[in-house]
């Protein structure tokens, strides 16, 4: 029966995380099939502009950098929400991932020996790069880091990385099906067997059975409607089908990052590299408010902190008026035409194409905009999903969880490759040890359920709401009430309104019944999952009565390490009415919770000692479905290795 196909490893998502994972599995001898909504080179990874964090320490402003400092920055950036062992694995492996990309052909910007003029905190600074570092991979400054650490290929880092990795996928002969998606995971008794798929050329549905399945579908920014920097394809389908199993939990869905500089009103991203290279933020009075509010890091505090200060300016009436709502200014004029058309060329092109302005002459309208999903499919350090053997997740779709409640700029691109390498190897080992275990009866049952859903959509007629109106309403609720500043009554209203929208979906009516993929039907099939992601994000935000990283509650302004040093988990079975929330410890603590060094905030201290907290981590995570890992918990943590890292690098510890 041609509706059922088989492969060794099924990778859902053809961006950097999925492709790097596929490469690793294929190199270890597995037959791999990648499903991608679009040709893989059009995946949203290609849009990452600014850089990839890795502590190579090559230029003068990076001198003394170490993986220990990268670990510290990442954990502080996460506001202690990260799993510190995962942050450690990440920081230790990021340099290898960056150098491997150089090997695959990425044209990293290199150190130019001799006199270089940089813009640092608004000043022009001349620095002599030593001859012995000539031609090594260069770094630029990004928010929330102690050293210049972001490696970059001009302003097209993600593009260059994705093209290099996709070239390797081509070389390895990995099967890629573009214009294809997964609509459901096939599973039974805590074991995943593949997915129900749909071809977006023809609308045909089918089944791919696999020994191991990987979710690498990226983030879910489109639940914020048009208020996102994300591509139109970032609809969170991977997280949604994992949630629909009712077994696999999603982690920290309320942890949503807003990027300080979304172009207003289109939402297109303007890279953090602009501020790294010396760009300023201005209010309507042309004041550089970040200098006063964050004297140490200024425009380069972490994204959550900068976004909040920007919204504070807007709330205080210091925004610039616009028909779509007030905004602030990004000022790059002092960087000059040559710098903007070479080192920040993509930024220049965005200004030219979407605003019709020259950024060396005019100011750029910006406003914080949804940018990144820290939450996702909860996995252990091997990338294996809680409660579901043979199911893995990597990249933004996963909650691996190195970002906690705030991701640092440049850490996501690096995560896709580090996680892709590590998870890909675990996937290959799993596939080598297992057979395809599902029978056709199970596969056909799942397929039939999807077919019935499609038939129901096509059969329903009448005057019900249309799917795009429901989507727009969801976006307004999410941005208005589950945005940068949150409070209980608004979140409760958001939950109620999203619930009503979710229920209205049963009356929604399609207007298109043409043969083929049918764009309206394709969207409708994702909308229920999107609404469920929005609901669990809003409910998780309502339940988390503290402020941590990007989750900022006006009514609970302190970070509460006594009661909330935890990860939110949520499960929602396909046919159940209500999601189930639970909590687990964030992971083993190595760096004790403390001040981040930016973003004035208070916290409630832990009641337990670090030792007491750490004692229960493994059992409490196992109770939540954490599966056994190849190496025991903590094996990669290198406890205490960070102790004198700041002194070694000539920094004063905070």
């Amino acid at each position, binding site marked *: 029966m041609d509706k059922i196909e088989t492969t060794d490893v099924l990778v859902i998502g053809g961006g950097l995380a999925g492709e790097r994972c596929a490469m690793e599995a294929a190199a270890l001898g597995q037959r791999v099939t990648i499903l991608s909504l679009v040709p893989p080179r*059009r995946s949203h990874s290609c849009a990452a502009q600014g850089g990839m964090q890795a502590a190579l320490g090559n230029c003068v402003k990076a001198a003394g950098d170490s993986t220990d400092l990268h670990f510290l920055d990442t954990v502080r950036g996460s506001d202690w929400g990260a799993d510190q062992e995962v942050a450690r694995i990440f920081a230790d492996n990021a340099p290898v991932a960056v150098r491997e990309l150089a090997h695959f052909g990425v044209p990293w910007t290199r150190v130019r020996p001799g006199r270089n003029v940089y813009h640092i905190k608004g000043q022009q600074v001349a620095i002599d790069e030593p001859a012995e570092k000539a031609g090594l991979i260069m770094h630029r400054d990004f928010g929330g880091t102690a050293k210049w650490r972001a490696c970059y290929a001009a302003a097209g880092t993600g593009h260059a990385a994705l093209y290099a990795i996709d070239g390797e996928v081509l070389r390895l002969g990995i099967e890629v099906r573009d214009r294809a998606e997964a609509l459901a995971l096939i599973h039974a008794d805590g074991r995943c067997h593949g997915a129900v798929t749909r071809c977006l050329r023809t609308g045909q549905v089918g089944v791919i059975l696999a020994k191991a399945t990987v979710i690498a579908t990226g983030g879910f920014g489109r639940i914020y409607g048009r208020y996102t920097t994300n591509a139109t394809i970032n609809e969170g389908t991977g997280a949604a089908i994992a949630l629909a199993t009712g077994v696999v939990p999603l982690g920290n869905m309320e942890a949503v990052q807003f990027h300080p500089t979304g172009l207003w009103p289109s939402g297109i*991203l303007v890279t953090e590299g602009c501020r790294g290279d010396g760009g300023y933020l201005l209010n309507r009075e042309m004041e550089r408010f970040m200098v006063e509010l964050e004297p140490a890091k200024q425009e380069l505090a972490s994204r959550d902190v900068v976004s909040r200060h920007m919204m504070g300016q807007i709330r205080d009436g210091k925004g610039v008026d616009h028909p779509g709502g007030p905004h602030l200014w990004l000022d790059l004029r002092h960087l000059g035409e040559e710098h903007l058309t070479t080192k920040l060329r993509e930024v220049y092109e965005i200004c030219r194409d979407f605003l019709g302005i020259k950024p060396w002459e005019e100011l750029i309208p910006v406003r914080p905009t949804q940018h990144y999903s820290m939450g996702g499919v909860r996995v252990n350090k091997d990338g294996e999903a809680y409660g579901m053997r043979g199911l893995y997740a990597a990249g933004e779709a996963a909650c691996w969880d190195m970002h906690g409640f705030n991701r640092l700029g440049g850490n996501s691109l690096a995560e896709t490759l580090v996680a892709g390498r590590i998870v890909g190897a675990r996937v290959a080992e799993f596939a080598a040890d297992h057979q395809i275990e599902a029978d056709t009866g199970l596969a056909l049952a799942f397929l039939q359920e999807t077919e019935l859903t499609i038939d129901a959509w096509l059969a329903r007629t009448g005057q019900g709401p*249309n799917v795009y109106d429901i989507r727009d309403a969801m976006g307004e609720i999410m941005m208005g009430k589950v945005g940068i500043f949150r409070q209980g009554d608004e979140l409760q209203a958001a939950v109620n309104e999203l619930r009503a929208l979710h229920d209205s979906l049963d009356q929604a009516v399609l207007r298109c019944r043409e043969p083929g993929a049918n764009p309206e039907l394709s969207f409708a099939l994702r909308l229920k999952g999107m609404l469920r992601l929005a609901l669990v994000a809003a409910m998780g935000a309502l339940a988390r009565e503290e402020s941590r990283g990007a989750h900022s509650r006006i009514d609970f302004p302190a970070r509460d390490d006594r009661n909330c040093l935890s990860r939110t988990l949520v499960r929602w079975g396909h046919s159940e009415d209500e999601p189930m929330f639970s909590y687990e410890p964030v992971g083993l603590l190595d760096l004790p919770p403390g001040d981040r060094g930016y973003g004035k905030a208070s916290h409630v201290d832990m009641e337990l000692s670090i030792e007491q907290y750490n004692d229960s981590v493994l059992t409490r995570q196992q109770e939540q479905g954490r599966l056994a890992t190849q190496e025991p918990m903590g094996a990669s943590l290198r406890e205490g290795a960070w102790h004198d890292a700041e002194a070694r690098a000539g920094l004063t510890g905070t």
Partner: protein
Amino acid sequence: MATESDSSRELTFEIFRFNPLDPGSEPRMQTYTLREEPYMTLFRALNRIREEQDPGLQFDFACRSAVCGSCGMMINGRPTLACKTLTSDLASTIRLHPLPAFKLIGDLSVDTGTWFREMGSRVEAWVHERQAFDPEAIEEPMDDDLAVAIYESDRCIECGCCVASCGVANTRGDFLAPAGMNRVARFMMDPRDGRSTGDWFEVVASDEGVFGCIGLMACQDVCPKELPLLEVYGYLRRRALGAAFVRKQR
């Protein structure tokens, strides 16, 4: 700034429609009207038409910020990216067709993905490295000027506009086309790639390659990324001729 008002233009869109999967569908032009908005791009306009007037209309967008290459189409007869085309730069009647030279999926949607994948396999668009990756070693130094040059030719986003504009690619399916030539040049100039001039000779020194170009050079005019495709052809011709010379001397 102007808001939507009586003073805004009424735009007329004439859009090619054909669904190859619908036995009842015939290729035709269909007309839609839409009130223009400030800073309206074709991304916004086409989505409004689909969501408000014709839910079956097929087209492709992903990043909507001119970096992913999904939305190449013929706009008033010229291939370009729809997402970065402002309606204010166009007359009030806008004619849209799918890119030629690619297989039609439906309406404005064409299969650029399959074309570029085949091209990538044909020219083996990956670094043929000299030695295996050593995870313990630091990176090989590279002069930044060379890195910039490689980055410049690596900027192609595979949108297919150059292919659609190419007189040869439209008549000969086996022609590598400008995007293919640019891909070859990108790896040829990369010292990390171990392929010799002779290896490249097989790929480009033929009528399917650089000598198939008849010099119309529309490709450089239409490239949304402003790649210097004219220079790419010049570079490849010089390298191909050099390779032929070396062969003869052997």
